[in-house]
């Protein structure tokens, strides 16, 4: 089961759906072989003039993040799009982003080797850990030279967390830490987080890096 990240193509699947559907998305994805997912809450707006006038255009949304091997993600992507009828309006949106590096998953062991030849200036490091550990991630990242981080609050379940309560799956609380870093710092930051949080041990969390082609507002 141990694969090499350098040879595999990994993708991040991001699905934005109405409140309450997030857990269903993860469930469908798990059937397609994805090992886990993280859900967090967001707000979206509806396009309706009447509702806008009434100021009732706010809607609660759920954003689902899942990482996996390209083929698996694409098959999950298709099943989700089919089962939730995403082609219809108001059913949600989904997209995938290529992932450069993945740490903390038992199935894909980390190999230090980037993918592809392009050279973007920046990386986005996304770390998902148990609730309350987000601060530690930020601290570890700052030690390695990161300028800042954003913590989001969500819930999710990996392969280690599959308990049920009256047919309802329990999805423990998570924190999602988003760090934008210069590419040359990425390695130092991920190493620091890895060491501080021992993320490679099972059940400690997951971290992945995606390429970012443009950033604004980052101060050097």
């Amino acid at each position, binding site marked *: 089961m141990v694969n090499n990240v350098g040879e595999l193509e990994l993708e991040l699947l991001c699905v934005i759906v109405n409140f309450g559907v997030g857990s269903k998305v993860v469930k469908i994805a798990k059937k397609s072989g994805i090992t886990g997912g993280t859900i967090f809450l967001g707000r979206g707006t509806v396009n309706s003039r009447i509702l806008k006038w*009434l*100021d009732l255009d706010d809607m609660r949304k759920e954003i689902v993040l899942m990482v996996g091997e390209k083929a698996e993600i694409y098959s999950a992507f298709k099943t989700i799009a089919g089962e939730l009828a995403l082609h219809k309006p108001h059913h949600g949106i989904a997209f995938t982003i290529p992932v450069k590096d993945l740490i903390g998953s038992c199935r894909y062991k980390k190999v230090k080797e980037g993918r592809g030849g392009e050279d973007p200036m920046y990386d986005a490091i996304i770390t998902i850990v148990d609730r309350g550990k987000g*601060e530690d991630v930020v601290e570890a990242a700052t030690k390695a030279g990161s300028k800042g981080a954003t913590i989001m609050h969500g819930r999710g379940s990996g392969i*280690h967390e599959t308990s049920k309560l009256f047919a309802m799956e329990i999805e*423990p*609380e998570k924190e999602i830490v988003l760090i934008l870093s210069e590419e040359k710092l990425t390695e130092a930051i991920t190493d620091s987080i890895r060491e501080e949080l021992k993320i490679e*041990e099972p*059940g400690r969390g997951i971290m992945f890096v995606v390429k970012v082609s443009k950033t604004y507002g980052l101060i050097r």
Partner: protein
Amino acid sequence: MSVFLEKLHEVLLSVVPITIIVLILNFTLTPLETPVLIRFLLGAVLIIIGLAIFLFGVDIGITPIGTLMGSSLTKTNKYWIVGLVGLFLGFIINIAEPDIHILAGQVDSVTGGSIPKFSILLVVSIGIAVMFALGLLRIVYNFPLYRFLSLSYLLIFGLAFFTSPEFLAIAFDASGATTGALTVPFMLAIALGVSNLKKDSKASEKDSFGLVGIASAGAIISVMLMSISSRPDKLTGSMEYKLPQESSIFRPFIEKLPTVVGEIVLALLPIALLFLLFNFVSFKLSKRAFRKILKGLLYTFIGLVLFLLGVNAGFMDVGGIVGYKLALLENKAFLILIGFSLGLVTILAEPAVYVLTHQIEDVTGGYVPRKLVLLALSIGVGFSVALSMLRIIIPEIKLWHYLLPGYIIAISMMYVVPKLFIGMAFDSGGVASGPMTATFVLAFAQGAAQAIEGAHVMIDGFGVIAMVAMTPLIALQALGLIFKVKARKEGVDANGQ
């Protein structure tokens, strides 16, 4: 319109169960007269529409005001400001709460006027305000909630020794009666606003809850102190419960409208004025955001008027009649059984329950699902009504036979359950005893007490709310225990390759 339909759907699911149970009863055990039944159905429609509008209003009006106030208070970074403004806020929003006026009126009448209504109003509001301010300070000082609550209830137990049994029931009732449909969302939002600013996300999460529970304890303490200091003679008033004899369909709705509107204007006014004041002094919102909040307040007003109108004119009579007729039946098991199922479904239609469960979902990112919280609450309230019925049937059972062990269990559970659930549980106690239970379930109990010889309408009636306010403490903490056991990671060690 999907947003509105979605909300309507959610609300429908919460009001339909109680309607169905009453309809079933109508065709089986307790046939209702046609006008009463039509009024009940009309009331159900009003409640559904009203609740949906009210919840929108809370979402875009009350909650933002509360969170803004909470966070701007904390940002001042001065303890004395938090304490002082907390005191002021707690006092002003509670003295305007309609439930507290009703409670004060009842106490005034049952004590034969030895404690005037106005002084009760003042004392209880001050009691709640003091505890409210202390509750806010607790959050900023990082004083653990379970210790704070343990101390408060220790004080309550101490005072209970000196309080007459009749007043004991009133005091514990006060805890539920004073936290109404408007004050609860507002207090919840303020707590959220204050605790949001905490850097430690875990503490911030669990501190979002608990403030309502603390304020409820304030109400209990102040009523007890009042009874000890004034030492009223034996309670003189004998509240008679009259079975409603109204044959007109629309008249009750029209008659109740002015009082309902008046009550809500009074309750909403302080919040609106405070918002204008705070906006001028510290928020300085953009025009669009400002207008949105004002609209929210308007929705809150319309929704609450419709809701209360439906409850007071449509549901209350039915509650009394059903209770009375059931109690007359030979087999008393029916009363207990149906009391249980009524408790089970009434709580679903309680407005503040919505607000609390949604806030729980938001704060925990969906980790604690609404449905489970509702389930726990339902079961808790079901038991509380069933136990109350048992107490009405068997006069030897006194209220404190339930309350004392109940609170001891609730307080000892605090030391084992996950901290997050403590605040939720104690908040839900105040939340569960809102306008729906305070009218429908209370009328049900009073109707039953009227029919059974040896039952005392006043004493037995008073105790019901106290029970409804207590059982959720245990039910939700039990849910917390289950979560604690279930949420452990599985196979981490086995897979440690």
